[in-house]
């Protein structure tokens, strides 16, 4: 079985699904000839031609808008937006058009597209190239939001997204792109959207994370004394959230810490925390803790480490929660 990084796993999933489904068309800035800013679509234009892997001008609104039209006309577009910050110019098309396509037309038209977007910090990039806006899109009814933390999941989740009847924002954590290799089967498999994964089982406390924060949580667990039993949940899909897995875990452990890169206020951790409070109130031994980024834009790389939650801050959050 080949060992692939996140870039390789996504490339493989795209290629395989393009082979299977000729309705799939990729659109984006420098995705063809250059193979994408992170080389995720490398080789696909050569293999599938310029009609299916379309280099577009710097027109994010146009890229998303075109994709919506393609989707409404029965195609399966996969636009790439180079960095999460560049979703800004496409916000209207995404939020006011794509997300409401189904509801506005009462199902007469739908928008099955997968918007691939690199997300998050940790690669020394500045603001607009390091942000984590997943909560913004999770707060948009009509969109699904997915964020894999590892190559194996990326392939399975992407295949599900490509086959989903509705628009999916597929966030790819940049710092995981090349940092982690694992066995990714050649053969086709899917991981359902909306299903979290229990990465490690435990009884004392539930850690909930997604994207690049999952490996930081694993690191934190390593640093904690062995007798502390942590259950780590990788959300994998931000929306629709797998409430059941979270609730079952917290009913068992009685304590929860949510970790995300995004700013704290109105981050998705607030939603997770609130649901736990609603559904696990009588089982809770401590208030739900959040370990998050701060309410500022991403600083330049010298301060990046101090911004992003790391194993130390997660350990501190866990200890606070356990000591309550």
């Amino acid at each position, binding site marked *: 079985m080949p060992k692939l990084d996140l870039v390789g796993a996504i490339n493989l999933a795209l290629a395989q699904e393009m082979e299977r489904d000729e309705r799939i068309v990729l659109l984006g800035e*420098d995705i063809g000839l250059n193979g994408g800013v992170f080389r995720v679509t490398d080789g696909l234009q050569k293999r599938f031609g310029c009609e299916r892997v379309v280099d577009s001008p710097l027109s994010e609104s146009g890229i998303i808008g075109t994709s919506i039209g393609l989707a409404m006309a029965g195609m399966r577009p996969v636009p790439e937006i180079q960095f999460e910050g560049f979703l800004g110019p496409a916000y209207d098309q995404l939020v006011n058009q794509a997300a409401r396509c189904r509801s506005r037309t009462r199902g007469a038209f739908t928008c099955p597209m997968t918007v691939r977007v690199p997300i998050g910090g940790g690669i020394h990039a500045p603001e607009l190239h390091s942000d984590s806006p997943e909560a913004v899109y999770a707060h948009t009814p009509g969109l699904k939001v997915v964020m894999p933390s590892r190559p194996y999941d990326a392939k399975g989740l992407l295949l599900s997204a490509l086959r989903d009847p509705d628009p999916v924002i597929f966030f790819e954590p940049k710092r995981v792109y090349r940092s982690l290799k694992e066995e990714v089967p050649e053969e086709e498999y899917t991981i359902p959207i909306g299903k979290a994964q229990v990465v490690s089982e435990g009884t004392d406390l539930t850690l909930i994370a997604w994207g690049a924060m999952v490996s930081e949580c694993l690191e934190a667990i390593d640093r904690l004394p062995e007798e502390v039993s942590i259950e780590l949940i990788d959300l994998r899909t931000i929306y629709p959230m797998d409430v059941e897995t979270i609730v079952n875990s917290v009913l068992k452990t009685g304590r929860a810490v949510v970790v995300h890169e995004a700013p704290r206020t109105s981050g998705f951790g607030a939603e997770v925390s609130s649901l736990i409070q609603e559904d696990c109130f009588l089982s809770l031994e401590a208030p739900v803790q959040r370990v998050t980024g*701060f309410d500022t834009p991403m600083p330049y790389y010298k301060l990046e480490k101090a911004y992003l939650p790391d194993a130390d801050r997660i350990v501190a959050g866990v200890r606070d929660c356990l000591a309550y």
Partner: protein
Amino acid sequence: MAVADEVAKRAVVTKQNTNGASASLHQAGTNGQSASNDGQIERQRLRLMLLIRRFEERTYQEYSTPRIFADGSKEVKIGGFLHLYSGQEAIAAGTAALFDKSRDYLITGYRCHGASLALGMSPHVAMAELFGRATGCSKGKGGSMHLFDAKVGNLGGHGIVGGQLPLALGTAFAQSYKKTGGVTFCFMGDGAINQGTFNEALNLASLYKAPVIYIVENNGVAMGTQVERHSAEKDLAKRACGYDMPCRNVDGNEIDTVIAEFGKAVDRARAGEGPSYLVANTYRFRGHSTSDPLKYRSKEEAERARQRDPIGLYEARLRDKGLLSDEQLEAITSSVNEEVEEGIRQAEADPNPPLEARFDDALAEKYPYSPK
């Protein structure tokens, strides 16, 4: 607070200018036609282009070489992405010749080092920002795309392609409202003309007769996609035909042409006649960023472009006119090199921003939560 004070001070200066006392500032020897007899102004312009080039090429080296500490550990000196200006110097340096620091504005995209140096930012302050030092123009918290200097009207670099176009309209609106006679220079790459903001900004600018000059630095490629593949209309000057404003191509590698052609647009804007749209055709010698594999162009194309290096062209002209000797060129080059090296030395020795600095400047108020 410091920046706000500087802005206030500049506004006062601006007021005085409306009396006409300094209306001649930009004509005082800065216009192409009124260059000095002994060539001093021309050599200054050459020096500025050489300074930008040297800064960019040294920046590239610094980006590629990690800092090594006494214990053998390493760290990158410049984080993130780096978009170099080499090859496009005549546009920034030509603009500087027309720019009135007391009342004009300049705003640009992410390829912003050239414009900032042209408006007088020192290599030290610019490099300190790239190194993430507290002494950088954005306190070491921005980096390559974040060079700003409020006291001279440098509205700086903007990371979203085309994001700056409507902003330029706004500052021009303010200049017109306050009757300062100031103009706003808005640089963009050829990639930006395909953004929706282009249509909104140019139409509004013309409707409002705003004193803004939209300048396309057409280096022929939007990130990795050449004009032929990104613009339906290959003559980019025609892209602004529908906005009822002058639109024309300019040789962006000839600084004298840049000054003369931009100068006409400046005169028009200062006279209250409204915006212009100029396409300064040029070439960038380096990739879009340092991670650009450059698959879209041949070695031959790049070599051909070097024949029209704006610095080489200007140097040759000054020699022809007898305004530049070997000794003078050598003196200029070594002073430029020394200035850049000294800037790098200082930036290297400067402190990093303090940890608490990460909570500053998101809002005027202090960060509302104690960090956990």
